[in-house]
């Protein structure tokens, strides 16, 4: 079976800057694929090009091994944009049926599926109410139903977890995992590494419109970062700081206060650190050799400023669709 998504050297320039620069990626069938990057890296622009919302200036997008992007294949794709919205004055059932029809699904089939999903997510009693009467969490569910109502083979989610309440976040996670189990493909973008680490089979990290690395989670971890050590304290840290700053033992450290992630220096023996910590009077809750977290790899790759850019509120795009 051909790969559901193949992006071939696409470039998109907006007034003044290049949002995506000769980016290639391919998403194999039946997996969860994460597109990772700091804000402004070009994730949304890439997904929008896949969905035919933007036309690439260079390069091409192929879906399901055929020419044409998301619009041509809209009945086979579920797309959830980052900025979500519904018609506030329409009835819930009507919105769902309309959005499915716009994708090319027949009216009758759309109606049956919509009712099924409303029943499953506990919104069946709200089907004739206006969207604006629903709580924010319920609206998120409706939005989510509209994405997957037509049982698409490929689901594309742009920052799907942003703004979700914990309940809906879990519903989404379950559905994504369930989708993969049923042999469908999920492509999603995020700047939150924890989500990616939990869900992704494969991933691609991009920054400033360029690909930095891609591959399976294990491959990425193997190629990046040496031996890692996670140390958590139980109260007293003793002389830990002195040992952590010994460059013969520790190459890099991310100190979270009660917990620290260390990258060992070349040839350093973790047992020596353990001995040193115990002798210095530190009380340990955890001492674990581990592969580096995705977060760590991400920070190393894109640089600390870019990684923390997640905390900066997204600025509204000015100029011709300068959104990331």
């Amino acid at each position, binding site marked *: 079976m051909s790969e559901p998504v193949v992006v071939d050297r696409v470039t998109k320039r907006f007034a003044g800057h290049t949002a995506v620069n000769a980016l290639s990626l391919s998403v194999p069938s039946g997996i969860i694929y994460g597109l990772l990057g700091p804000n402004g890296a070009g994730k949304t622009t890439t997904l929008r090009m896949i969905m035919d919302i933007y036309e690439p200036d260079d390069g091409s997008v192929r879906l399901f091994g055929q020419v044409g992007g998301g619009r041509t294949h809209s009945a086979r794709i579920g797309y959830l944009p980052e900025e979500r919205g519904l018609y506030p004055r329409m009835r819930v059932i009507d919105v769902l049926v309309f959005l499915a029809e*716009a994708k090319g699904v027949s009216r009758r089939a759309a109606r049956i599926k919509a009712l099924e999903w409303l029943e499953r997510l506990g919104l069946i009693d709200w089907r004739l109410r206006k969207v604006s009467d629903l709580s924010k969490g319920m609206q998120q569910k409706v939005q989510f139903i509209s994405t997957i109502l037509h049982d698409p083979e490929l689901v594309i989610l742009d920052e799907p977890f942003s703004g979700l309440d914990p309940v809906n976040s879990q519903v989404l996670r379950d559905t994504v995992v369930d989708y993969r189990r049923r042999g469908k493909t999920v492509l999603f973008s995020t700047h939150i590494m924890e989500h990616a680490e939990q869900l992704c089979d494969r991933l691609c990290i991009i920054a400033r419109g360029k690909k930095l690395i891609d591959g399976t989670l294990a491959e990425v971890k193997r190629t990046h970062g040496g031996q890692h050590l996670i140390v958590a304290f139980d109260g007293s840290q003793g002389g830990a700081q002195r040992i952590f700053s010994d460059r013969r033992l520790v190459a890099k450290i991310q100190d979270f206060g009660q917990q620290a992630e260390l990258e060992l220096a070349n040839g350093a023996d973790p047992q020596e650190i353990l001995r040193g910590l115990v002798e210095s009077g530190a009380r340990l809750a955890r001492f674990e050799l581990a592969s580096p977290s995705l977060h760590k790899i991400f920070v190393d790759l894109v640089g600390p400023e870019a990684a923390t850019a997640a905390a900066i509120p997204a600025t509204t795009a000015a100029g*011709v669709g300068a959104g990331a």
Partner: protein
Amino acid sequence: MHKVWAVIRREFVERVRTRWFWISAILGPILFGGVIVYQIMQSLGGGVRDIAVVDSTTTGFGARVTEALATNPSFRATRVTAGPRVVDSLTRLVEAKQLNGFLIISDALSETGKAEYRASNLSLQTVEGLERALNKVVVKVRLETKGVNPDVVDWAQGMKITLDQTKIARGGTTKESAGESFALAYVMAILLFMAILLYGVNVMSSVLEEKTTRIIEVLVSSLRPFELMLGKVAGAGAVSFFQFVIWGVSARLLISLRVPIARALGADASAAQGIKLPHIPFATLAVFMAFFLGGFLLYSAMFAAVGAMSSNEQEARQAQQPVTYLLMISYFSIIGLTNDPSSTFARTLSIVPFTSPIATPVRWTAGSMGVGELGASLAMLLIGIVAITWIAARIYRVGILMTGKRPTMKELVRWVRA
């Protein structure tokens, strides 16, 4: 095509479901019914004016005026001899609504032609009726003073002249009075203006809604922007057409019920028979519908572009002004058009696509337009629609995905060229 249908249906169903659609659908017939009832009530004597004739003449002139007024069913006149306090007390009666007004006449009338009428309400109809009656009496009195036999005068005045009006237009003639033709053209122009503006703005707010709620992104990933715009315009157009149908059918229904309505109000059937819709030839109706459709397409494409380039209601209100002004040009020209439909000014308006949707039906109705000119006007409108829709679609395509500040003129030009 299935996708475009979905957009059209959504646009139509959601609009027709709104309260405002039904309010305006009902308001039309209520207004029209009101006009019918008003006319029947008029015939019942609701329109009779109570008038006093303050007579300071010495020749029995006042009595003759009172007599002449009595022959007109619109007046009930009483003669009052002039006195020191008469005007004051009559003024009080007028203020107390016991009298509609009073006419003051003196001997000077037959020399200078001047009299005075004081009333709480000076309607054109009343004043004309009074002037006609006075004129008749004065002419008679003046002829008598020159020795003409009063019977001869009566005989001479006892004939009413009527002009049989026939309109020569487009190689044929139609029985139609000047008033009817004018009124029809005028009503059409107002209807066209209102409908194009109202439903054009509807398209704009619908575009804006999709943009501000961000639902546009999902839509554009399934439909081409042009398909979406087309569906929207067609849907809103269908709603306005439906509105016209409701008004048309209810007007016909009310007309066919005018006799029972008259009976219910206690008037006789003849009072109602006089009320009729002006005769609208099929060709006129076709021209009206064609230019409404054309004007609607032209302006709603512009309104769609305005909606797409704005990011909130306030911005849209500002950005729509140039478009509204463009439509206003023809609105303010209606009087000029109806007064002289064959002037160069009128000809120009009917060839320019932005004004022809209103100007051409008006000139056609007034009968001052040949088939050739009509064809030219329609062709220009079609060219205008294609050109404007092309430009609007390009602005729409980029604009719907934009947030932030409104684009400058320079940026708009770049969008269109891109």
